[in-house]
C-alpha cells in the first residue's frame, strides 16, 4: 500500500514532490517569535552561542541510514556554523550517546548538555522508506525550564535527494527563531570565474556548494546583478565585441539587450521593481540611467561630466549610492531620487569604489584604496566612521551583502589567485568560500530566495 503511495508521489510534478510537513507536532513555531534576543546580529561584539548537535538518531540499523544520519547532522552543523553565530561543540565531548537516548524533551537529561557548556541543543531522528526521507528535528534551549525548552520542532518528509533542502529549511527556522530574521540558506551567490578560459558568470549556493557555469559567452562577461525577486540576472558581456548589457530570465530562455554606443555596464536592479539602473555612455559621457526591465530608458539619474558608475540601491529604492570622479578622484555619493539631491559619502582616501548598500539600509560597504592596497570598508549612510574590515591581506574588492545583512562576500588575492571570501558584517570569520580553477571575482549575493 505504501508503495502505491510512493508511486503516486513520483507522478507529481517536481515542485510538489518536495514535501515539507512543517507539522506543529509538539510546538507551535509562533512561540519562537518572542525568542530572538539570542543573537543580536547588529552587535559587533557578537558572542558565539555554544551549540551541541549530536548525530541524528536512526531507527533502522542499516549502514546506509547511518551514513545518511551522519551526513545530515554534519550538514546541519556546517550550515549553522556558516552564519558565524555559533560555536559548535565537539561531538567527542558529549556525555550522551544519541543512539541510546530519545530525541524528545521528555527523555533528554539536559544537565548532560549544560555541563559541557551547550546552551542550545539540536536533536534529530531520521527514517528512510522507499527513498522517502522522514526527518524530525528539534532545537532546545538547554537552560530553560521544561515548558519552554523546545524552540523549534519540525518534521520533514521528501525524497532522499532533497535532504539538503530539508536541512536548509530547518536552519532557516532556527535562525528566524534566534534572530528574528530570515535565514540565508536559500540564497545563492553569482560571481565571475575564468575557469573556462574566459570570464563567465557562475552561480553557487550561499555556502559555495554546487558552483555551476551560467553563461557560455566565450568573451568577457562581467558584473552579474540579481533582480529583487531572484528571477532575473543582468550583466555586461562582449558578445558582439563591445560592452553591452544583457538582461536574462534565469529559468526561461528570454531576455533583453541594451547595446548602445559606448559602454553599457554596472547594472543594479531597483528593489521591488522590474527596473534597473546602469551606466551608459552613448551620450559621450558615462551617466547612470534608470531602465525598464526590458532595457528601455526611463530617465537619466546622474548628469555630471566625468565618470558616474556602479549604482547600488537603498532597500526602499529611494536612494542610490554610486561612484563618481566629479571631485577628481573616485568617491561614493548618494543620490536622493525624489529630491534629486546628491551628497558625497566618502572623504577618506583617494580611491573609493564598488558601493553595496546593506539590506538593513543603514550601512554601505565599499572598496577603498590606501597606500596602494585595496580593502573592504563599511560606512554608515551618514558618512561617519568608516570601518576597515580587511587588513594587510592582498587586495580585497567587490563587497556584497548577504540578504540578511549579517555577512559580506568579497574577492581577494590574499592567497595568490583571486578567490571569493566571506566574512561577518564586522570583518570577523574571514574564510574562502570555494576552490575552483582560474580566478574568481565580482561576487553578488542573491536575495533571500531564488528561483532554482
Amino acid at each position, binding site marked *: 500500500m505504501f508503495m502505491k503511495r510512493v508511486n503516486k508521489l513520483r507522478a507529481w510534478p517536481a515542485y510538489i514532490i518536495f514535501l515539507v510537513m512543517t507539522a506543529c507536532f509538539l510546538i507551535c513555531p509562533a512561540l519562537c517569535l518572542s525568542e530572538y534576543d539570542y543573537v543580536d546580529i547588529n552587535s559587533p561584539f557578537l558572542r558565539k552561542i555554544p551549540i551541541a548537535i549530536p548525530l541524528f538518531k536512526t531507527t533502522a540499523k542499516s549502514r546506509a541510514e547511518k551514513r545518511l544520519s551522519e551526513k545530515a547532522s554534519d550538514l546541519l552543523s556546517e550550515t549553522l556554523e556558516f552564519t558565524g553565530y555559533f560555536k559548535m561543540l565537539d561531538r567527542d565531548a558529549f556525555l550522551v550517546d544519541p543512539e541510546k537516548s530519545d530525541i524528545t524533551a521528555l527523555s533528554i537529561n539536559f544537565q548532560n548538555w549544560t555541563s559541557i557548556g551547550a546552551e542550545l541543543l539540536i536533536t534529530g531522528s531520521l527514517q528512510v522508506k522507499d527513498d522517502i526521507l522522514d526527518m524530525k528535528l528539534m532545537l532546545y534551549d538547554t537552560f530553560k525550564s521544561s515548558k519552554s525548552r523546545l524552540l523549534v520542532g519540525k518534521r520533514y518528509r521528501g525524497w532522499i535527494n532533497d535532504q539538503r533542502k530539508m536541512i536548509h529549511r530547518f536552519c532557516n527556522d532556527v535562525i528566524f527563531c534566534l534572530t528574528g530574521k530570515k535565514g540565508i540558506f536559500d540564497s545563492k551567490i553569482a560571481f565571475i570565474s575564468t575557469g573556462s578560459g574566459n*570570464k563567465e558568470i557562475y552561480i553557487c549556493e550561499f555556502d559555495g556548494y554546487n558552483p555551476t557555469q551560467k553563461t557560455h559567452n566565450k568573451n*568577457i562577461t*562581467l*558584473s552579474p546583478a540579481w533582480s529583487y525577486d531572484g528571477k532575473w540576472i543582468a550583466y*555586461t558581456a562582449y558578445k558582439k*565585441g*563591445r*560592452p553591452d548589457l544583457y538582461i536574462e530570465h534565469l529559468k526561461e530562455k528570454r531576455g533583453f539587450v541594451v547595446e548602445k*554606443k*559606448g*559602454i553599457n*555596464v*554596472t547594472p543594479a536592479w531597483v528593489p521591488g521593481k522590474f527596473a534597473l539602473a546602469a*551606466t551608459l*555612455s552613448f551620450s*559621450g*559621457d*558615462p551617466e547612470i540611467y534608470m531602465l525598464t526591465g526590458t532595457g528601455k530608458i526611463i530617465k537619466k539619474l546622474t548628469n555630471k561630466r*566625468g*565618470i*558616474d*558608475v*556602479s549604482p547600488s540601491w537603498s532597500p526602499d529604492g529611494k536612494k542610490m549610492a554610486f*561612484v563618481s*570622479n566629479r571631485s577628481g*578622484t*573616485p568617491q561614493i555619493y548618494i543620490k536622493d531620487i525624489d529630491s534629486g539631491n546628491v551628497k558625497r559619502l566618502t572623504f577618506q582616501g583617494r*580611491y573609493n*569604489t*564598488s558601493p553595496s548598500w546593506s539590506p538593513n539600509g543603514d550601512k554601505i560597504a565599499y*572598496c577603498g*584604496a590606501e597606500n*596602494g592596497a*585595496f580593502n573592504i570598508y563599511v560606512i554608515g549612510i551618514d558618512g561617519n566612521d568608516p570601518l576597515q574590515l580587511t587588513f594587510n591581506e592582498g587586495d580585497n*574588492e*567587490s563587497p556584497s551583502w548577504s540578504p540578511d545583512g549579517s555577512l559580506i562576500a568579497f574577492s581577494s588575492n590574499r592567497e595568490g589567485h583571486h578567490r571569493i571570501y566571506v566574512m561577518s558584517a564586522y570583518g570577523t570569520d574571514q574564510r574562502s568560500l570555494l576552490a575552483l580553477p582560474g580566478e574568481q*571575482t*565580482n561576487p553578488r549575493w542573491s536575495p533571500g530566495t531564488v528561483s532554482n
Partner: protein
Amino acid sequence: MRKKLWISLVLLLVIPGLLCIASCAKKVLKVEPAEVVSAEDEAAIKAAAEAAERAKQEELAKQRAIEEQRLKEEQRLKGEQAMRKKIAARNMFINENIHFDFDKYNLLPLARKILKRKADWLWNNSDVSVIIEGHCDERGANEYNLALGDRRAESARAYLINLGIAGSRLTTVSYGEERPVDPGHNETAWAKNRRAHFTIE
C-alpha cells in the same frame, strides 16, 4: 700497222694534251661557276643579309626588353618600397599606443604628439575607419575601470576630431582592465596597460 702507230702517237699526244686542257679547263671552271651561281643564289644572299638584320633587330629588342624589365623592376622596387613604407606607416598607426597616468584620462604631451601623427595618417588614408580601444591597469574596481577606459578612448577620439578627422570614422570601445598587454603586477606593466590602442576596422 703504221696507221695504228700513228693513232697511238696521236693519242699519246692528245691525251696528255686533253689532260692538260682538262686541268686548264678546271681552272676556268673555278671562275665560271661563280659568275653563273651568283645570279641563281642572289636570293640566298639577300636572305642571309635579312637574317643578319633580323638578328640585329632581335638583339635590339632583347636589349630593349631587358631595359624595360629593369625599369619595371625598378618601378616594382619603388612601388614595393612605397608599399613597405605605407605598411610601416599603417603598422605604426596600429602599434603605437598612447599612455595615461593612473586613474587619469587627460592626454599627456607625448600622447598628443602621437595623436597628431595618427591624424596625418588618417588624412592620407581617408577610406579607413578606426576603432579606438580604451584600456586600464588591473588596479581598482573593474567596473570603474570600464568607465575609465571609455573616457580614455573618448579623449583620444575628441582630440582627433579636433584635428579635423571625421567623427564618423572613429568609434570607441572600452575594455577596462580586461585585456592587459603586459600581465605583470608592477608599475612597468601597469604603465604599459594604461593605454588607448588603435585598430583598423
